[in-house]
Each structure stands twice: as C-alpha cells, then as structure tokens.
C-alpha cells in the first residue's frame, strides 16, 4: 500500500449496486442494497479475495465489475480511467481487459457450439483477425489451460466438469485480460478436481501476469490463493487487509466468527466456539446502525444508531465501533 507513484490497476470508489423490490403491480416497494458503498483498490499483479456468506453481495460486486450489472452509484476506474458509470455501454476494449468468470465457467459455453467455435467467438467480437490467426491463438490458450487439441471439436456436454471449467477459462483468456474476477471458482467440484482447478488458476496467473479478484465463501481457498482479503457482510466491506493479518488477527467480530468456524484437525469443536447466532437480516430491512448488530456478540447500544465506517490502520481496515488499535 506504499506505492503512491502509479495509480492502482483497479479502483472502486463508493460503488453501490441496488435493486428495486417490486411489490404489487410493479410498484417500488423497497430497495435491496446488494452492494453498498464499497471502496477498494487492486494493484497490478495482486490477488484480492472477497469472502462472505451467501447473500453478502460478493457475486453482485463481481458482476458489477464484470459489466453484467450497472452500478447504481459510484465509480469503477481501470488504470485511473472511469469505465463504468450508470447507463453507459462499456467499450469493448474495457470488456477485454476486465473479465468475469462465472461460478461454473463451463456454463458460459453454448451447448450447441463446439469448443473451437466458442473459443473463437471472443476474438470474432473483439478483433478482425483472420481465421488462421484466431485459430493459432485459440490453440495456444487451450494448451495453456491444459485442453488437448482433440477437445476443441467436442460439445460442452461431452467434457468433464473440470474440462468445462478449463474451457470457460480459455474463453476468457483468449482476449488477454489484465484483471480476472473469479466467482466461486471451486464450488460444486470434488476435492481432487478443486485442487487441480486451483493449481490451474495459480498457473495462469503467473503465465499471463494477471491480477485476480477472487470471490468465495471458502476461507481456505481464498486464504491460500490471495495476498489480501476483504470480508463482506450485507453488501459492505467490514474488514480488509493482508491475508495473514485478517485470518491471524481478525479485527471485526464477524471475521472472527468466520475464522473460528474453520474446522481444524486436533482443534476445538467448531460448534463450541461459534459466536454467531441466527441469520443475517434481509438487506432491504436495514435502516440505520451497524448491519451486523443483530448477531454481534460484542454490540452496544451505539451500534444500533451509528453506522461504522471502514477505518484503515497499517493497511488493515475494519468497520466496527468496538475496535480499538
């Protein structure tokens, strides 16, 4: 965090993504604050993990970055230039540099297209290369993600789950992105495949010098892959910092519960230490105060009134009134 010379590769400033909740006859009944006032930045070559439970807004954050949702408020800057504002179509060059990988990256393949055609498509859209030129690139990338040449003539349902994810990754990589947003890259895979997919993701990061934003609910996955971690709760970042700091000395009570809930061999029973009862409140029902107060073991009366801001000390930020350095 001590390189003020060059602007960060990716910068989010007070980014929000809200969805209207429609009641009877399409009347606006409320607002779902899926992502609320999120600011963070990524340096080139860094890997940032975003963790949080289901419904915390991590996927919406990823999709807003990937250009699938429009932000309601705030700015996204790529190398200092704003790329996503409300109601403006994102230029192709930006789409190529910043790519979003779906939870099941294989699902981004059209079932009726052969792999070769699916891998050519990004290049057809983004470049005016000749067929041979595209084919060479496709083969290069397919090889890099570990797909054999004969796989290119197959349809997605003829591939295994792991191969489908490789193919989904290849589709992203042919455009030569700088930043890749991974959304739950290992969910739904069995452990041995998870390991190979993670090894692949790590490998292509080195090979193509990529910057990662990795969304997951699995602390072990992001903990092993990422330099920094951001913890999200109800659309907000409640803690952000270097992975070792966040996992080793968590400052927010929510992070502490997440870390405590990790099972360890020979450690105490997880259920004995779990200090987090109940479910998160529905994000539309939040009115004021800290979003976590309904489940917080250390909350005070002030927490019901004051909305904590992210306070950053020594590159480690936390949004909690009770935290003292």
């Amino acid at each position, binding site marked *: 965090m001590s390189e003020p010379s060059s602007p960060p590769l990716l910068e989010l400033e007070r980014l929000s993504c809200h969805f209207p909740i429609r009641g009877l006859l399409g009347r606006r009944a409320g607002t779902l604050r899926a992502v609320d006032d999120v600011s963070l930045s990524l340096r080139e070559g860094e890997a940032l993990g975003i963790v949080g439970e289901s419904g915390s807004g991590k996927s919406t954050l990823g999709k807003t970055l990937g250009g699938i949702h429009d932000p309601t408020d705030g700015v996204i800057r790529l190398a200092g230039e704003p790329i996503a504002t409300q109601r403006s179509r994102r230029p192709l060059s930006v789409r190529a540099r910043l790519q979003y990988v779906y939870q099941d990256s294989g699902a981004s393949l059209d079932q009726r297209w052969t792999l070769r055609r699916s891998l050519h498509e990004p290049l057809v859209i983004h470049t005016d290369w000749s067929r041979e030129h595209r084919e060479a690139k496709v083969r290069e990338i397919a090889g890099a993600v570990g797909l054999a040449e004969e796989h290119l003539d*197959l349809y997605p349902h003829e591939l295994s789950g792991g191969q489908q994810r490789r193919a989904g990754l290849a589709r992203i990589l042919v455009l030569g992105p700088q930043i890749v947003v991974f959304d739950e890259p290992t969910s739904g895979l069995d452990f041995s495949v998870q390991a190979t997919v993670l090894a692949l993701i790590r490998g292509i990061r080195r090979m193509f010098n990529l910057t990662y934003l990795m969304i997951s609910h699995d602390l072990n996955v992001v903990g092993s892959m990422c330099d920094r971690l951001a913890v999200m709760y109800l659309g907000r970042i409640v803690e952000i910092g270097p992975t070792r700091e966040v996992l080793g000395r968590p400052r927010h009570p929510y992070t502490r519960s997440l870390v405590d809930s990790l099972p360890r061999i020979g450690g105490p029973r997880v259920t004995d230490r779990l200090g987090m009862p109940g479910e998160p409140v529905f994000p539309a029902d939040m009115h004021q105060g800290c979003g976590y107060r309904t489940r917080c073991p250390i909350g005070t009366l002030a927490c019901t009134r004051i909305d904590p801001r992210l306070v950053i000390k020594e590159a480690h930020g936390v949004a909690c009134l009770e935290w003292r350095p």
Partner: protein
Amino acid sequence: MTKLIKSIIGHRTALAGLLLLVLVTAIAIAAPLIAPHPDAAESFHIDRRLMPPSSEAILGTDRMGSDIFSRVILGARMTLLITAAVVCSGVIIGVPIGLIAGYFNTGLSIALMGVAEVLLAVPQIILAIAITQSLGPSIGSVILALSITYWPFWARLVYAETRSICNEIFVESAIALGASSWRVIFLHILPNIASSIVVRTTVAVGTTMFASATLGFLGLGPPPPSPEWGRMIAESREYLPEAWWYAAAPGLALFVTVLGFSLFGDGLRDILDPKTRRSG
C-alpha cells in the same frame, strides 16, 4: 445434416411420418401426370354421376360425374399450397416477433404479446371464418385468414423460449463479452430454440391443414369446381351412406396427410433434444 437424416432413418415413427409426407408431396407435385382423368376432374358428365369404384374410376365418381381419384390427387396440391403458405407466413411473422419481444422485453413486447394473446383467446376457426367471410371465398382469403390467426402460436412459443434462455449463463456471458444483440439473438438464442420451432411447425402443419379443410367444408375455401378436400367431404354428405366412396376418398387423404405430419413432428421432437447431440 447427414447426421439428422441418419437419426430420422433410425427413428421408426419419424421415418413412417416422413415416408407418408414424401408420398403425399410427390403425388401433389406430380398430380397432373398421375391423375388418370385430369380433364375429367373439373368437368360435368351427367351420364357418369355417382358411379361406385370400378376399373374405369378406381375411387368412383362424384355428383358431377368427375373422377374422384383425380380430384383427390389434384386436391393434395391445393391443400399443401394453402398449408405451406400459411405455415411460412406464420413462421416469418411469429418467430421474429417472439425473438424481439423476448430479448428486449420492453413495453413494445408487452404490446405485441398482448395482441398475440387476444388472437389466441378467440377460437381460431371462428376468427378465420369471420375473415374469409368478409373477404369472400378464395385461396387468397383462406391463406390470409389462417396466417392472421396462426402466427401467435409461433410468437408465444418463441417469446417464452427466448425469455427462459436469456436467463442462461451462456447468453449473459455472451452479452458481458460485448456481443451485439444481433449476434446473441441469431447465433445463440435462435439455434438453441430452433428445435422447438421445428417441432411446433410440423405439428402446426397438421392443424392448419384441418383448418383449411374446415373452411372448405363450410364453403369458404376456393370456389367450385376447383378440387378441395374439405369441400368434397361437404358435398358428399347428401349422398351418404349409399355413395360411401364419395366421402371416404378425400377423408382418407386428409387423415393420411395429417397423420404423416404428426408422426414426423413427434419423431423430430425426440431426435432434436440437445442432450442427445454428439459431435462425432
């Protein structure tokens, strides 16, 4: 394409349907050559009225003394012409409307689907009767009336399929990749819903054929003496049950043709299921 033909040949129902269709179409195309008495099909021969099947007229003669076999064969042309025109215009009008309404999903699509639903709410045949009645009986008015009443079937189907496929990740990811709407609609959505359209179309051919025969039966089809199956069945009613061959021949022709399309449609539905598609 060769794969499709192979799987049709391997599918008993589809093959049976296809053979019937090939037979009927071949007869319709070659009608003037096959018909034993083409000149006797539309003329009046008082001395040969209502003759039972014999070696001279293998399906007998009608109340005008015309050869029924020739009339049925020439009628196949008429029926197929009307059906083809109606189905083509139904696809040409209905599919783009469904695609555009489903993909863009704006106020316009609500309006378009509203029109389609109003047309579907009225019984098709009654609407068609009203239109042909006001235009006067002719081939053209039958085609127009049935086209107006049948396009919503395609529009509704394509709209629903498009809406559901737009939620698929591969469509979302193609849009995120920067693909143009044109590209997404015609290269991703249309091929993925093509099999439903094809199946719907083959089934629709049967219903359209029935509807056009119904209009003919009610005297709203092409005017006499041009041969039309529906009208032939209508004329024969006065002479039943004595002149049984009079109603049987066009009735059987209609039955066989519609059966052919239904069998073929059912077979295609099985064959075109994407999960059974193989590359090699």
